[in-house]
């Protein structure tokens, strides 16, 4: 259901499987929306905790994304760097309803601004 708390950002099908699209927040940080091989959707601020690589451009595998700049692996559910690497990217609550992708408005404003 679309309510004032959830923002409809488009159809799930607009995001490639094992891929990502972005949502721009003018004056704030871009949000990356990921779709995994088993059709789950996650959203993170589009910024690697290492050196700000655009996570949306990485390879999505399992429930992780490999950063395109130096190949850190970031867990999509928590935004945390995996393995030896340390760091965390803010998570934006996201859900899919009737094929539409919705992100939490307040969280989106908070993390992105």
């Amino acid at each position, binding site marked *: 259901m679309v309510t004032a708390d959830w923002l409809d950002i488009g159809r799930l099908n607009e995001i490639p499987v094992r891929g990502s699209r972005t949502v*721009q927040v003018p004056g704030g940080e871009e949000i990356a929306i990921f779709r995994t091989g088993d059709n789950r959707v996650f959203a993170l601020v589009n910024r690697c905790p290492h050196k700000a690589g655009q996570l949306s451009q990485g390879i999505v595998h399992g429930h992780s994304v490999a950063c395109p700049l130096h190949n850190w692996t970031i867990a999509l559910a928590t935004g945390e760097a995996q393995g030896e690497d340390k760091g965390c990217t803010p998570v934006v609550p996201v859900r899919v309803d009737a094929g539409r992708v919705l992100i939490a408005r307040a969280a989106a404003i908070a993390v992105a601004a």
Partner: protein
Amino acid sequence: MDIRAQEFGTGEAAAGSRQHLVVIGNGMAGCRAIEELLARDPGRYRVTIVGAEPHVNYNRIMLSPVLAGEKTFDEIVINDRAWYDDNRIDLITSDAAEAIDRDAKTVRLGSGRIIAYDKLLIATGSNPFIIPVPGHTLPGVISFRDMNDVGSMLSAAEQGGDAVVIGGGLLGLEAAHGLNLRGMKVTVIHLMPTLMERQLDEAAGWLLKHALEGRGQTILTGADTAEIVGDGKVEGVRLKDGTLIPASIVVMAVGIRPSVALAKQAGLAVGRGIQVDDHMVTSDPDVLAVGECVEHDGQVYGLVAPLWDMCRALADGLTERHTGYKGSVTSTKLKVSGIDVFSAGDFAGGAGAEDIVLRDASRGVYKRVVVANDRLIGAVLYGDTADGGWYFDLMKKGEDVSSFRDMLIFGQSYALGGGQADPKAAVAALSDDAEICGCNGVSKGKVVASIEGGACTLDAVRAICKASASCGSCTGLVETLLAVTLGDDYSGERTTKTMCKCTSFGHDEVRKAIVERGLKEIPEVMQEMSWSTPDGCSSCRPALNYYLLCAWPGEYRDDQQSRFVNERMHANIQKDGTYSVVPRMWGGITNPRELRAIADVVEKYNAPMVKVTGGQRLDIFGIKKDDLPAVWADLNAAGMVSGHAYGKALRTVKTCVGSEWCRFGTQDSTGLGIQLERMSWGSWMPHKFKIAVSGCPRNCAEATIKDFGVICVDSGYELLVGGNGGIKLRGTELLCKVATEQQALDHCAAFIQLYREEARYLDRTAPWIERVGIDYVRQRIVDDEVGREALTARFLYSQSFMQDDPWEKRAAGAERELHSPMGIFQPIALAAE
């Protein structure tokens, strides 16, 4: 008839001491609710059930076996006439309720009859969703919801011919299966890239597709219906890409919508479904609702298990036992005979969620369970679903699985059998005649006997009893047997390095299997070679994608999602997220038109820098990803194509001026360089590949540190290979000397193809040649003339599919979404609304 009308007409009087409960919907939930109620307090309510269908209560989920001819209607009846009579339930069939008057507490039926109620139960189920494409109302477009639909399908199937099923979910696949068994030629059209994507992951979806195709169905994934065509009746379906599929019937199975029209009209609270509380009471205390038509706690359900829970809570509520419904966890099983699929729970995980994957290619089994915080939270099973119930149970109970976590994937009997917390025990527990190697029919007993007879390495076992010597998918099992049999004496040696943590095979083994066993898709390789992750990782996916496109030119469809960003975007990502763009400059030669176009692009898109590269061309920096298609369009207009500065592909061909101008030049090095570049551009390779041609041994083009270098001399051309100017400097070695330009081109093509076919992904030519030896390369390219010609021919064949400019396609609008955001979110404007 008259008596009834009278009786119903005067609700109050007829009710006597018992309240009158009227149920709308003679389906699965409506009748189950009454069964539950009768079990608790048979005398409490007088019950009337109103049904739109002409039948008694039957098991809707068994319509699939009826369609498939495995069951008759009589066999799927849940409650026959006698049940209604014995329990003094008034059943009204073939008469749909049309309106509810909540003030008068009556229901009006289609026949005009009015029925008074004290309590009303709405159990109207769902309506099939019909996509409103042109032609959706043509005769021959059928949904799959009730016995009437099955009847329509069966009479169509009698004529034979073609059927199209739109929707590759549970319902669509069961319809397709039934029609297929009834002799129709079936095509399934599914919008998503994998079948049953809501329940299955990519790996299981792929296996399912493969199995259904094996039964003669055509499965089109990623296919979007544009219209249903036909003159007066269905004749075919046209897809958005223009394909026309002939069909005499079209079954639409794209989804269901809770049937809420009656409730809405009566002014009840309705969201996606009729909103109910934990006791299935709607916004009106005298009206209840149950089944697929309801929305509880924001959820609607499309499976029967939740209905059973709802009906229990409802009957408890009606008899003053307040247990309440708390929502349901659901699992799915596909009812297609011979294909076992099970899925339950959630695969998304969260912090610390971990996948455990087991694949057994010889049995066609894929199992994946997801564990988080020591609890099982999701499972997908394909091919062997025996443990589905057990997993589902663990999930619902939220049981701690840490004590048998290692054994979980082997199923209940191993995990709970004797408390061995060691995966090896599962193998050790196999009986002696259990088959280990399906290809060569080798039993466990034989493998153990060979190990005891002295075969203490994998290779030795392969040599002696042939286990794991063919397809290799039992390698893991054989290794476990080595470990179990030899104990501490087994070093666990594996001579080859594995590709990545997802597999126990090395690059060469995987490549060999792809070619020899004709594996043609990434999920197929993963299944056949027992990948331990559901969809690989950022190391193996790009490698597999390359191996497949190298092995099956023209056939394999490149997987964009398995490519590193630069190859997906056809430009090099920079540390600030912008891209650099390097157009090809054939042999390092340019002209005013190209230079002008580059200058214009730099100005028009405010590129902060343009630089002469070390590869004899120009690099434009700082282009935004949204601008890339426009930049490429402008460069294309001046005749320039992608320079592949971003790819594991041919990069530059550096040349010197050569005999055309230089006083020392012996041959036309520039011309040969351009010919080499024209021949080999566009080809994907294990790593980047660089060529240079110098006009004399002074070597101004630095040909001796290139993957393929040519030094021109008076008598011909010295061909050099395996040079590298990068991290580890390596000079080339001489491959051979040839007399003509054509020979130089042919040898170059053969060399590239040998490298493409045999080097490991991300090996440049230098480390590859150091591994295999220059003598081997000379033998293949120089000594074996026939072999060389075949390599050249294979390279040129592959090139016939590769040489179109990726920029041109993008500039023309292909994959637009890669270059633009999905949306722009204006927090300020929204906050103000």
